[in-house]
């Protein structure tokens, strides 16, 4: 691995951590078919599917941003995005 790609990797990892700490799980509702895999795999039982149905980001204070729902969704509905806590919309 050359130095450039190592730096890229480091930057990617730093960005990933930043998103995990400052971001929320944000849905793209039109991709969703309400199968419920997200809620099923949430370790603390957040109704992720319900958020998607209403087109809302998961701003539950209990959300660990562990990424289980994002990774398990078979249709790529969910992603981590930095969100503005105060206006309720994704940036």
């Amino acid at each position, binding site marked *: 691995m050359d130095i450039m790609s190592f730096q890229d990797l480091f930057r990617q990892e730093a960005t990933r951590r930043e998103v995990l700490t400052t971001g929320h799980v944000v849905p793209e509702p039109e*991709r969703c078919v*309400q199968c419920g895999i997200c809620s099923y795999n949430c370790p603390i039982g957040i109704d992720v599917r319900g958020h998607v149905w209403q087109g809302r980001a998961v701003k539950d204070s209990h959300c660990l941003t562990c990424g289980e729902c994002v990774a398990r969704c078979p249709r790529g509905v969910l992603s981590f995005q930095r969100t503005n806590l105060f206006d309720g919309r994704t940036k």
Partner: protein
Amino acid sequence: MRYVIIGMGVAGIAAAEAIRRQDSTGEIVLVGDDPHGFYSRPGLAYYLSGELSDRQLFPYAAQDFHKLNLRYVKGRVTRIYPVEHQVDVDRHGRLDYDRLLLAVGSTAVRLNTPGADLEGVVKLDHLDDARRIVKMARRAKTAVVIGGGITALELVEGLVARGVRVHYFLRGECYWRSVLDEEESQVILQRLQDDGVRIHFCTEAAEILGKRGRVVGVRTADGRQIKCKLVAFAIGIRPRTELAQAAGLDVERGILVNEYLQTSAADIYAAGDAAQVFDPLSGRSILDSLWGPARDQGYAAGLNMAGQQTAYVKSAPFNVTRLAGLTTTIIGTVGRGQDEDLLGIARGDSETWRQLPDAIVAQSGFDVNRLRLLVGEKRLLGAIVMGDQTLSMPLQKMILTGVDITPIRSKLLAPNAPIADVIADYWTQWRKEHASQQ
């Protein structure tokens, strides 16, 4: 005001939500004969593959129904009287309505191969079907899957995940020929073969063989016999139009509705799989069998029923699915022609995908990350994104809003063009330029 909604699928529920949003006091009566009520039909695939428990398939909890303040009548509507504004409900008698919604869905086309009524011949159309397959897969070592489209692959992959050896019959040499191109089909079929699926090209089932009423094998048209205990089929769906037809409503392949989801009879609306919706853009009436449009149509129908005139604007059809483990997004117009493995439309399908005007195909990528674009004169007409989904959202927006691609058209059509990079760069630039309008 009494609103009667027939059907408890996503179109019916979305209509109830829209009505309640507009009218807090009107009476909403939901009539349905599905013992399971509202559940995610597309989610059955994930239940079959073992990624999900069947208890998880229900998006609505009791309090969600409570919030809508609706009356549920469990029963089957046997007749509609459009002039009298009444419906007959089995075992409940006659019910008056002011506005009626037909959100009755669609049903799987039956296999008419001899032996199709044997025990062990299954479809994936309903939660009961999925439960039956899960139960049977415990005993069956081998299964034959017949058909095309998304549902056939859901059956193949679900059975493989449950340890069943699967023989997949295709009438031709490609999978889902009407939507995928040859290479895409090849990618999918190769991945299935890598998972141990035995694919039988140019093969048709001539007879399902049985013993004491149960499946023991399949005889093919060219005389081969394959032993199996399970035969699963997915050869298309048919909108449920019987009620509408009997009531004298205009029906083609589905129940015909205008852009306000109104049928030919006063105060009767239709939405979802059962509806054949007028699309002002193409001037044609189109069938979709997709969760998203069903929800949108149901919602628009509900608003119209409650007096807020709202046209249903058909957007570019869009579906995300997983084909042989590859997340695949299909947007706009991507394919052409007929599919010999399907009769009519398949679940997760839209007729728009095959209404191909003159478009040039540009492609890039390899095996698991593939991108195919259908490039029109000034805009993108369709896209298939397989594997990496980074570009699916930008492409969806570009196709949906008809973004002018004149500046990049020649780049996209250049031989061996890095089309993913061209799109990504153009999208970034386009968004910056249009940020103030978004």
